[in-house]
């Protein structure tokens, strides 16, 4: 191995690490606010990538039907709750169930040719899946144990993978790159697409940092994450925070899917492994710290790139073995806290 190969591997590792990093951010965000380990996060990535591919092939992605059905279901459920006297936050409900699906259908029916419009359509298609899934699957169980919520996640994952096969078929797709640019730098080529990936990932982290540090909604989310009951006593609508965190997770999933689809062939079930590696990264951050999760993601990316060079048959083994020393170190370093329940 010479320096050039090492540089190429490192570059590859950073690009993949950036995508895993976005997964890890979404997982940490959702877990800390709602205690849900959102396994279907990976499916959102695959749905976004394959919807984009369908749009570029001039077809209406079947994700639209999923979105419309979920939206209709959510609307019925909310109306039913409202009739039974429960409090329903109608503005946010209408945004997720009517406004965004409506916009998405309008955009998809236009069959846009411009890359920017296709991107927008995909974002509108996939982002609302987050809050809609939350309302239908998780919110009725918001007070259940972490284990119960995990089981719901596994079930949702199974359902969504099945739907993915039904919608997109067993074969994969690639999409057109956002940037065809190629930079020559010190004897190695850097593709524009990989710069886009890294750039978007880091700006996303910066935006999230500002959002949680400065905005009132971000602060409310953090308060809910720290203490659900306390936050509610302070007048923070904790149900809304679930909505917002799942919407962010949906958005991050959609963005990651759009970014990774030009780099590799996406399949209906590729998302799971990407999500799983994001999960390993999130574990490095203890499912609580954003910067540590991002560092973990970059570590996973590098480990994967170099492992694929030195010992390609054992690549996945090495990546997932990383979780064992991390868990050991974490359990030695933190004193045991009894669960709240």
């Amino acid at each position, binding site marked *: 191995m010479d320096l050039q*190969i090492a540089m*190429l*591997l490192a570059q*590859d590792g950073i*690009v*993949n690490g950036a*995508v895993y990093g976005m997964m890890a951010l979404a997982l940490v965000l959702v877990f800390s606010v709602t205690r849900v380990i959102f396994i279907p996060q990976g499916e959102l990535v695959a749905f976004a990538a394959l919807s984009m591919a369908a749009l570029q092939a001039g077809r209406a992605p079947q994700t639209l039907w999923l979105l419309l059905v979920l939206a209709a279901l959510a609307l019925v459920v909310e109306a039913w709750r409202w009739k039974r006297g429960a409090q329903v936050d109608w503005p946010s409900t209408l945004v997720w169930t009517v406004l965004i699906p409506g916009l998405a259908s309008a955009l998809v029916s236009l069959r846009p040719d411009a890359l920017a419009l296709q991107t927008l359509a995909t974002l509108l298609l996939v982002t609302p899946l987050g809050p809609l899934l939350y309302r239908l699957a998780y919110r009725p169980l918001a007070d259940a144990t972490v284990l119960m919520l995990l089981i719901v996640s596994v079930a949702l994952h199974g359902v969504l993978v*099945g739907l993915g*096969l039904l919608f997109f*078929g*067993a*074969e*994969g*797709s*690639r999409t057109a790159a956002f940037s065809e640019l190629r930079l020559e730098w010190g004897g190695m080529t850097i593709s524009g697409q990989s710069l886009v990936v890294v750039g978007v990932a880091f700006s996303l982290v910066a935006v999230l940092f500002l959002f949680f540090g400065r905005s009132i909604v971000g602060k409310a989310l953090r308060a809910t994450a720290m203490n659900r009951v306390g936050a509610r006593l302070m007048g923070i609508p904790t149900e809304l925070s679930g909505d917002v965190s799942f919407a962010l997770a949906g958005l991050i999933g959609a963005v990651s899917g759009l970014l*990774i689809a030009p*780099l*590799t*062939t996406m*399949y209906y*079930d*590729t998302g*799971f*492994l*990407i999500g799983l590696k994001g999960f390993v990264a999130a574990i490095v951050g203890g499912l609580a710290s954003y910067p540590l999760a991002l560092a973990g993601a970059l570590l996973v990316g590098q480990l*994967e*790139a*170099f*492992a*694929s*060079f*030195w010992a*390609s*048959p054992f*690549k*996945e083994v090495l990546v997932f073995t990383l979780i064992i020393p991390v868990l050991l170190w974490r359990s030695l370093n933190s004193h045991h806290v009894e669960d709240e329940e």
Partner: protein
Amino acid sequence: MKTLKPLALATALLASMLAHADINVGVIVSATGPAASLGIPEKNTIALMPKTIGGQKINYIVLDDASDTTAAVSNTRKLITESKVDVILGSTITPNSLAMIDVVAEAQTPMISMAASARIVEPQDAKKRWVFKTPQNDIMMSLAIAEHMSNNGIKTVAFIGFSDAYGEGWFQEFSKAAALKNLQIVDSERYSRSDTSVTGQVLKTMAAKPDAVLIAGSGTPAALPQKTLKERGYAGKVYQTHGIANADFLRVGGKDVEGTFLPAGPVLVASQLPASHPLKKSAQAYVAAYEAAYGKGSVSTFGAHAWDAGALMTAAVPQALKKAKPGTPQFRAALRDALEQVKELAGAHGIFNMSSADHLGLDQRARVMVKIENGAWKLQP
């Protein structure tokens, strides 16, 4: 008799067809899971198979094993005990087919596998005498590649394969073929079908400077190493296996897979076969039947393996019917014997000549070399 009919129907429903004279065919395919791109065309092909053979109605009972070994075994048991099947077609992939052998041997039910590995039918023993298969052995395809390589002046080869039974099986078989043809394997790498990047493997491959690279993957995931090789400026020849022979590979690979060589069943290039080719008619018959039902350009070689399994069954059933009634152990044994006696049967992939030692029965006529030119398969002389 007339008054008894409703009663008989009810009994049949309740006792799940105990006194049935129809022939029940159990089909197990991997229509979901990692092997779905192989299993779906096979499942589609089942719908095109004959509805009656030798005057007997054929009931097809199709189950999905989700590419999972345990599900394949439990489906096999279910088909045998509940549906009382006379023959089982399946499964799509090697691990599942291997696991099903014990069950069908115990129940003495013939089985025709649509998976590639030679281990499914070799060596013949008391259990495997119930098992037949239709796809070409990997060694036949490996030899075709090695022969083509040595004829084109290639001396060194690098191997990039799936990190599963498919890649490992190919590596073993290709190593044997390469040794026969004096080819040197300078590097061997693995990747998994869900990988999003193979840069590391490709860099290492290129550092070994091989004359040619053989990629052993199936379906569209096999395009990723080749795209990366192209991206990194690899100028040598690239060979693929017959696992990629479907239209989606060409769609995903695009211009990066131009000039690729692969061995394949003649059905892939049925229309380009010379009129004198013994398979021209039977291969084109399958293509016509499939495309009439599922649209132009939808045909793949995987479905043709199922078609061949159906052709074997269709040839053997009339012989077995002479000896026993469907639904009895005697019929299943007669069917097995008849399958073993199939001679010069032209399927979509090759000419089958079964014997007690050879439960595949294909020869060199079952493979051709194909090159990808202008986004299409081109038969190589």
